[in-house]
């Protein structure tokens, strides 16, 4: 019997396997950032261990960095210590680092692909759950905890149990105004936050093949929101074209590509689970609750918990509506928004900024609303400025910031206040995720932009 794509990559990285033990997997690349690495480097020092492969490791500053006045000393002393610790660790252990002010500083999952060091057939880890983003290139990429970060630093391997495989087939053609973000929000709403638990998801089908690399990254990025260990997409010409010309594209491109072309699921391979979605029927999607599975088409209304049969889900919906300050039956398009956040590893790349700018051009921001535009990396920011997108955002009335994770997780000063409601292109609508007491609706860049124009959740078709 043939193998799935995930099985092929997994098998190509087994250093050692033994009955009754997890496989020892070789890791091709580890990405590092300030929040989940300090304790790992401390562990190395305590044990007198070195970083085995500094040349397969790269660090950037993103989670806890300011997006204003980035070249001034960081105001919060605790944040400053964390950034300084990363810089010192990188220096001590000989690891490449892209610090504030550098063109390749930015959200770790935007930086890897833009440098061309994310390539098909790799195993990639990072102490961040959205590492699944890199799966868009046909790589097995997954988030790990700090103990595992230390393990990979010391050994360049990770003991891992082989995940099960799931295929999600998205067939058909997306309507105008429906994007990769809507596909993945619809998938999570269908399979739930635990639906992917224990699986690597392979996204397949004509609607996936038609997506750009950036759209594919948006899809794979949120695999973790469905509980999956990782998500990936088989590489094709779109993938090869994207990598070509990037700084770390292979010198012997032909040799690399001939391997990459073997990376697909064999016709006779069998997935443990298969799910199919019709792309023709998809609409712009938005979340109404406090987990990413609580989402609906934007034309819908806030659900009534009483209509939910499962008692656990009903209770969760009741709590979510209370936290979100929403009444059952309210049309989603009537929900007024205070803040629009455009950015993150989900939707902070150049195509996302272009899409939003195309909606905002020549318009003015809704009264009392604020909009933060935070490019995923400094390189994305520079590209946007080259195209004049910064002017579009500023003329519209949005704030044009420096790169970082920013309001996606509200670790730096970019936060919602208590009761403040956002439409956000990020990935998590958990209670307090964007600031204590803040209320988050997850949306695509197009919906975010249209919402900033009208002041209520909207799609460009409503303008």
């Amino acid at each position, binding site marked *: 019997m043939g193998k799935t794509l995930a099985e092929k990559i997994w098998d190509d990285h087994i250093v050692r396997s033994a009955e009754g033990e997890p496989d*020892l997997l070789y890791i091709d690349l580890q990405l590092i950032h300030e929040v989940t690495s300090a304790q790992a480097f401390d562990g190395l020092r305590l044990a007198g261990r070195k970083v085995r492969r500094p040349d397969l490791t790269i660090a950037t500053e993103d989670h806890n960095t300011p997006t204003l006045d980035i070249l001034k000393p960081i105001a919060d002393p605790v944040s400053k210590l964390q950034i300084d610790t990363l810089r010192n660790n990188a220096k001590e252990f000989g690891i490449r680092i892209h610090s504030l002010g550098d063109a390749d500083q930015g959200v770790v999952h935007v930086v890897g692909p833009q440098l061309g060091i994310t390539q098909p057939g790799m195993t990639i880890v990072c102490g961040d759950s959205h590492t699944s983003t890199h799966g868009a290139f046909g790589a097995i990429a997954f988030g790990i*905890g700090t103990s595992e970060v230390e393990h990979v630093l010391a050994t360049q391997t990770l003991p891992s149990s082989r995940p099960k495989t799931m295929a999600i087939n998205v067939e058909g053609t997306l309507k105008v105004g429906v994007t990769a973000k809507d596909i993945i929000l619809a998938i999570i709403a269908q399979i739930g*936050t635990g639906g992917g638990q224990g699986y690597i998801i392979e996204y397949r089908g004509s609607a996936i093949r038609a997506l750009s690399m950036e759209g594919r990254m948006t899809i794979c990025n949120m695999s973790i929101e469905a509980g999956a260990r990782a998500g990936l997409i088989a590489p094709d010409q779109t993938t090869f074209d994207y990598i070509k010309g990037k700084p770390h594209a292979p010198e*012997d*491109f032909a040799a690399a590509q001939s391997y990459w072309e073997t990376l697909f699921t064999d016709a006779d391979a069998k997935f443990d689970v298969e799910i199919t979605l019709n792309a023709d029927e998809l609409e712009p999607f938005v979340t109404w609750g406090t987990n990413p599975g609580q989402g609906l088409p934007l034309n819908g209304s806030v659900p009534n918990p009483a209509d939910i049969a499962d008692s656990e889900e009903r209770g969760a919906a009741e709590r979510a509506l209370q936290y979100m300050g929403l009444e059952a039956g309210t049309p989603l398009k009537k929900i007024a928004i205070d803040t629009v956040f455009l950015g993150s590893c989900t939707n902070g790349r150049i195509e996302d900024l272009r899409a939003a700018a195309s909606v905002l051009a020549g318009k003015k921001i809704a009264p009392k609303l604020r909009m933060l535009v935070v490019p995923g990396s400094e390189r994305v920011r520079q590209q946007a400025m080259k195209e004049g997108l910064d002017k579009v955002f500023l003329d519209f009335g949005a704030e044009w910031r420096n790169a970082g994770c920013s309001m996606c997780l509200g670790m730096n000063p970019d936060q919602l206040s208590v009761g403040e409601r956002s439409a956000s292109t990020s990935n998590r609508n958990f209670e307090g995720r964007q600031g204590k007491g803040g209320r988050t609706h997850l949306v695509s860049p197009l919906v975010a932009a249209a919402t900033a124009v009208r002041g209520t959740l909207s799609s460009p078709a409503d303008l």
Partner: protein
Amino acid sequence: MEKFIKHTGSGVPLRRSNVDTDQIIPAVYLKRVTRSGFEDGLFSAWRTDPEFVLNKEEFKQGTVLVAGPEFGTGSSREHAVWALQNYGFKAVISSRFADIFRGNSLKGGLLTVILPQAAVEALWVAIESDPTTAITVDLETRTVSYKSVSVNFELDDYTRWRLMEGLDDIGLTLKHTDSIDAFESKRPAYKPKTLPIRI
């Protein structure tokens, strides 16, 4: 890592599903560069509510957290495990855990026990009717027991052995350095490297 063989303590019933790691410990608490001192951030938003279970006098001594399904979804932050441990929890029982959280917990010696949802509900009822109920989580026999009830749970032999011996994963892997060397010698040249830097 401290060995885990058996733990007996009282329980804390957390009747919520989808307890994500942002609830366990919000991002603003992740700025520390140590592995300790995270107990103040544990469930910090919920702890402002006097009715929250951790604020109730009868559950303040609890060391076994009994939670709803999909515990630990979201971020990979191991700080969530440290916060639970720093607070004093030795084990968490749920019918379903998110993969990364579970991996982190078992690396760090916080035992996450998967029981059927019906067994979790029965345990909630037992703890709520008598908060002093002693709960024993026994890795040797792979059982959770309280009063006259005993429920088996599954945990693979390898992880169980590692926890019971308190073994460091890195030390175990370094015994196979020869295999890692051999694998590396066969890696194709086109695989990317981060150094030297190319721009």
